[in-house]
């Protein structure tokens, strides 16, 4: 159950031509990468929920969440740098901590990615509606634009965007680095625009009752707006491209978190300067609502909502893509049925898998309110942090000889702090979220014991074959590597 994958076999996969990444990225570029990955769409979506819980003190919640991320990001970087292959947290844990932990992380990532697509899709719908409302004075009726719990029947725009992106992915569209760069720029410009307009119309009225719910409120809000920081692991996985990982990685991780935190704090200050926490909380598109309902500047609200819709669309694509690829990796490793992961001959994509996941996520986005979805994403991510931090501590003991281009300083103090912060934030999530998460994990473990444990390729074919490629790494339809035609 704790069998690990041979790191060497992973290396042969990724060092072939076209795969070797240039080791040429310095601290500045890594930081830029990090900012680009973190400033996703969380801020467009969750600031309202956070302000509703903590009041203006949500500003402090942003800082708290950033600190929690920092420790875990450092641990993540050590793990990523010690295994010189491309991969996700799932790949790293498979090679270091063994199959069952890899399974848990993978299963957890499927939840995290799938549920965040749903959350972001709801935010997309909210911003679309805010745009229609501010620009043309028409909006979709609540019945088809909100979840049942928020007084609607189902969320049609969210379903639409998830299914549309699913079809794109089936056809084989992925976001290129250039598009990604443009989208990051759109997000930054939109945020700067919001901050500028908010500062011009700033009022201090909403700050008088700064922390209505006290420390509890601040940590609870942290556990929610934590969503806005998801994505920072991109810097950690950038380790293989780093010129000098020991020095540049911590600089980049901390630097990008600081820059993003400044952005977020300014955004939060601006939002509260023009709108009340109650106004922010009631909306799926809080920033647009702040401009429209709070400051009464309809034109600015429509510009912001339009920018958000554009930027969020690309994030839905990236995350849904990520989820299908993690699921694919687990299927190929035999932990989930490989039949699900067949590659469509026409499009060259895992079409079946993409459609199944897309439909499930669409159902989730249609029926579950934003706040609940976000909490579920966060508990999953925080749990993965705990595993990664613990993993670093364990590996220092079990495999001290493993080369580590980047090492977390003061281990095990910093990883333990990472665990502590993650657990602290998790403990502030409501019981209902915990129950949902535990049920999800339990389902996962049952599947693992019933299916994955017996069908794992690692277990079934542990031997490395003559040509050096492990059996599990070969195409299931053509184990002999024969001509497909």
């Amino acid at each position: 159950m704790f069998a690990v994958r041979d790191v060497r076999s992973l290396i042969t996969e990724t060092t072939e031509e076209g795969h070797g990444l240039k080791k040429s990225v310095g601290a500045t570029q890594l930081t830029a990468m990090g900012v680009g990955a973190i400033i996703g769409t969380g801020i467009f979506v969750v600031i309202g929920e956070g302000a509703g819980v903590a009041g203006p003190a949500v500003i402090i919640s942003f800082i708290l969440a950033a600190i929690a991320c920092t420790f875990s990001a450092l641990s993540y970087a050590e793990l990523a740098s010690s295994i010189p292959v491309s991969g996700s947290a799932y790949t790293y844990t498979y090679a270091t901590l063994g199959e069952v932990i890899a399974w848990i992380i993978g299963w957890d990532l499927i939840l995290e990615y799938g549920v965040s697509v749903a959350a972001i899709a709801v935010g997309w719908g909210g911003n679309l509606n805010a745009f229609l409302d501010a620009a043309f004075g028409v909006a979709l009726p609540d019945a088809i634009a909100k979840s049942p719990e928020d007084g609607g029947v189902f969320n049609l725009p969210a379903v639409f965007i998830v299914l549309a992106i699913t079809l794109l992915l089936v056809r084989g569209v992925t976001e290129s680095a250039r598009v990604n760069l443009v989208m990051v720029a759109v997000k930054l410009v939109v945020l700067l625009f919001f901050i500028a307009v908010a500062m011009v119309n700033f009022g201090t009225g909403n700050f008088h009752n700064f922390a209505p719910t006290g420390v509890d409120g601040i940590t609870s809000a942290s556990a929610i707006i934590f969503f806005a920081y998801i994505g920072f692991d991109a810097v950690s996985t950038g380790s293989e491209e780093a010129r000098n990982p020991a020095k540049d990685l911590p600089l980049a991780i901390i630097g990008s978190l600081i820059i993003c935190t400044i952005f977020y704090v300014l955004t939060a200050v601006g939002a509260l300067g023009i709108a009340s926490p109650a106004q922010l909380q009631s909306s799926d598109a809080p920033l647009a609502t702040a401009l429209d309902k709070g400051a009464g500047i309809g034109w600015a609200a429509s510009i912001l909502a339009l920018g958000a819709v554009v930027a969020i669309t690309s994030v839905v694509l990236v995350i849904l893509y990520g989820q299908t690829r993690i699921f694919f990796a687990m299927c190929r490793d035999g932990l989930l049925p490989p039949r699900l992961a067949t590659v469509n001959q026409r499009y060259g994509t895992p079409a079946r898998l993409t459609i199944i996941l897309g439909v499930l996520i669409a159902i989730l986005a249609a029926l579950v309110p934003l706040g609940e979805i976000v909490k579920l994403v966060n508990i999953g991510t925080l749990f993965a942090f705990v595993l990664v931090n613990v993993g670093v501590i364990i590996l220092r003991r079990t495999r001290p000889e493993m080369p580590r281009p980047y090492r977390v300083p003061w281990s095990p103090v910093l990883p333990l702090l990472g665990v502590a912060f993650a657990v602290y934030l998790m403990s502030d999530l409501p019981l209902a979220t915990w129950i949902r998460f535990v049920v999800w994990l339990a389902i996962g473990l049952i599947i693992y014991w019933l299916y994955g444990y017996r069908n794992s390729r690692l277990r079934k074919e542990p031997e490395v074959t003559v040509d050096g490629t492990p059996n599990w790494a070969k195409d299931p339809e053509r184990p002999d590597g024969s001509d497909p035609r």
Partner: protein
Amino acid sequence: MTAPDAGADGPVIAGVDGGASGKDALILGRWAADVLAVPLVVAVVHPAPAAGAGRVDAEWIADRHRAAETVLDGARTVLKDAPGQVEYQMVASTSASHGLHDLAEELAAQAIVVGSGRSAPPMRLFAGSTAERLLAGSVCPVAVAPAGMLSPPGSLGRIGVAYIDTPDGWAALETAAGLARQTGSALRLYTVVADNDTTLPPLIGEDSERAFLSLARESYETTLTAAVDSLSGIEVDYEILTGNVVETLAELDDVDVLFCGSRGYGPARRVLLGGVSTKLMRRAKRPIVVVPRAD
């Protein structure tokens, strides 16, 4: 088959994807490389990592990379006994057409050869979207091999060219004549005139309709004769066919390859104006070579 600005020794690229039509592309590419006395590069495009957080697709990319290797191994088997220099390359790109374009530019390729789509009925060309997208802005001629050619290229001794008196027609003619010289084949120019329209004559009178057609035919004969006379050193003639342009050219079965020009419209305009070359690529019985305009 020389691209306007390509070096004389650039290779021919055969794009394969493991589909049923890959073998046709290899056969046509092998022949083209032989005739031009340049190396053949067999290329397979596999996905490049997507932008986004956390390298989540590393295993997917690795898996597709292995699949691409399998495809190249298949190509190696097909070309096992082929003479001449063959190289095998993998290209990481976001799309097959992008990857082939980039490779063609990098290698200053003479031509890109692709197969038709998988769902093709035997003997018919059904170019997939890759071939269509390749045409948009290709730097070198794009050749599309129909599925399961009855006669291998080079066995018929005649090169065809769909000729019209426009810059893209001249470019196609020039490239086709160059190939005819190199292979010692005969060259035949084809122009298609519309059939008698049966709906209009009652309105405008059958006489004037016929008069118009014969006038059109005469002017085509003049330009074709001029074009034939401008070529030296090869055996060349022309034929005027009657009927629907695409259908008539698609039915040609006595040429090794048929050249045609491309006006290089962007995708939107091509749809509006119905470029002949795009439609022809889908239906022809013989390999089609679409030549980009020379400017």
